[in-house]
């Protein structure tokens, strides 16, 4: 599957293996890691929530767009859902291609479009006791 959501830890090694091709000379990958802070606030934990059927449909469209736009061999993206800890992989993107320019461009396209278009939401829990749905501009007591 070129785009999937995952309730369990993302394994970059296994995911990378699926993109190996003898004809591919370049491999670019991206990982989004859960950070310990955001906009000056200390983050203790967070969760991702997805509207799963549409997230996987829209994600698959994004990967297909990348395969069409760039000269690449293969590409995939996995996004975690559920509660995550600091340092966990929140999102993983991998692209293999004949040459490196296309691998970088496609990798960046996939993560940029995923962040902009895929219906997944992040709730951050801060050390100060508040939590917030990121980008929804509203702070709620935990």
């Amino acid at each position: 599957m070129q785009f999937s959501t995952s309730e369990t830890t993302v394994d970059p090694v296994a995911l990378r293996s699926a993109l190996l091709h003898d004809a591919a000379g370049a491999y670019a990958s991206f990982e989004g890691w859960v950070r310990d802070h955001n906009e000056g606030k200390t983050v203790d934990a967070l969760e991702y929530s997805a509207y799963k059927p549409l997230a996987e449909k829209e994600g698959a469209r994004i990967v297909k767009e990348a395969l069409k736009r760039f000269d690449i061999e293969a590409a995939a993206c996995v996004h975690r859902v559920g509660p995550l800890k600091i340092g966990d992989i929140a999102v993983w993107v991998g692209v293999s291609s004949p040459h490196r320019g296309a691998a970088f461009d496609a990798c960046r396209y996939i993560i940029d479009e995923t962040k902009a278009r895929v219906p997944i939401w992040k709730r951050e829990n801060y050390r100060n006791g508040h939590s917030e749905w990121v980008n929804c501009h509203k702070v709620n007591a935990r």
Partner: protein
Amino acid sequence: MKIQLEYFALLKDQRGCSSETLETDAATPQQLYSELSERHSFTLGPESLKVAINEDFADWDAPLSEGDTLVFIPPVAGG
């Protein structure tokens, strides 16, 4: 007609549930969001939301049909 609604993120918190079935006369998502927004004091204006009908993106003025599943999509924050 009956419309199935699913709520996510801030809308789910403000509605206090993740899904409901509504009997409504609203002809479009726009009309329905306007009603719901007033009833539940949603803080997100329609300009910051997207709409999905039956698991795909749709226009705010798309016609609603009996049995449709409708989702108002808050600003996303994946990655």
